[in-house]
């Protein structure tokens, strides 16, 4: 988001010189064009999906389009066994590590922040949480699942789910 915002603000001519893709656009392009083939049986466990603030709500507010459905469409191509957490999309809860919070010393507050998200995930009964964001990934994997006694919860990047579903 910082890159897109920065291009719009300071280098608007760049959009005339080269094209841009988000990770969602590119994965969807490969899947729709048949350039990658995916096996839906690789992730049989019940999964859920996390909307990162930057790709969802904040993209909607800042760029006029929130990437809500793209990630869900990609999930649909990789597994038949996933459910949404509630609330989701624009009303989801932040993982607690956004905005650089992962890099501040306020660990206790960051974990406290994440309780709302963890409650959401627990309520789905999911064994796998899929995230398309590095900060959310670290917060879930290295912090929240330990702090909230959910060590069995698997955490994966959305592109890792896609990569691990590829049939060569």
């Amino acid at each position, binding site marked *: *988001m*910082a*890159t*897109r*915002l*920065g*291009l719009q*603000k*300071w*280098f608007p001519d*760049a959009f005339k*010189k*080269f*094209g*841009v*893709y*988000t*990770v969602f656009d*590119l*994965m969807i392009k*490969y899947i729709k064009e048949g*350039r*990658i083939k995916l096996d839906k049986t690789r992730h049989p466990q019940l999964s859920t999906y996390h909307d990162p*603030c930057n790709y969802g*709500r*904040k993209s*909607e*507010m800042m760029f006029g389009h929130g990437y809500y459905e793209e990630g869900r469409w990609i999930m649909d191509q990789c597994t038949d066994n996933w459910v949404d957490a509630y609330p989701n999309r*624009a*009303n989801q*809860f*932040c993982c*607690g*590590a*956004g*905005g*650089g*919070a992962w*890099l*501040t*010393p*306020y660990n206790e*507050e*960051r974990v*406290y*922040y*994440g*309780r709302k998200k963890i409650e959401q995930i627990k309520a789905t009964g999911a064994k796998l949480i899929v995230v*398309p*964001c*590095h900060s959310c990934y*670290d917060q879930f994997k290295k912090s929240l699942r330990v702090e909230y006694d959910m060590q069995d919860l698997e955490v994966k*990047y959305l*592109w*890792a789910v*896609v*990569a*691990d579903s*590829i049939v*060569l």
Partner: protein
Amino acid sequence: MEALDLTNRSRRKLELKPEWANICFACGTCASGCPVTGVDGWDPRKAIRAAVLGLEDELIDARWPWICTMCGRCQYACPQGVEFVSLIRHVRSHRDREKVPGTLHKGVEAALKTGNNFSIPKDDFIFVMEDVAEEFAEEEGFSDFKMPLDKKGANILCTVHGKLPFGATDDMKFWWKIFYAAKEDWTIPSENWEGVNWGLFTGDDEAMKTMVGRIVENMEKLEAKNLLFPE
């Protein structure tokens, strides 16, 4: 505490734009939807009142604007369209750089100096990328995988999240696998490859602009057709 003279507010350190705070109804929708309402006695509504009513230094010096993740849930729900995220980022920008908490500003300084948030030297970066690529090529099905560093005229140019070559190299392989399977023509620059822009978090526009400008330079230098926005 002295009474505030609201008709003559000379001390306006935050240079508030109306859409950042002055149009707030104080309804509290923001505070009721925020997971860190009450931490250190702050909440979004209180922060906005502080900004409007002259308690700027109290807000700038508080930990709370850094515990807030700028997630925008308050702003999304606000009936008045208060731009809370911009306000908090603006508040953060008024912190002395030495007092920015944690490693955020150190990362910004490192990025400006070395091209990446973790100060990985160019030679080390090339070594790591080549090394992990060799390891990846040993996996079944990827024997002819080559690391396309600084490839001119590629269809896709990728940046790299600094934490990956720094300490999570296996996590780079997911995208490599996708590119390989899709037969994509892609590249990674060997300099200024950092995709993560911590200036966004610290309210440092100059640093943010420099980092984005380097991506543009790489796009031009390597004549890449498309940029994959950093994850």
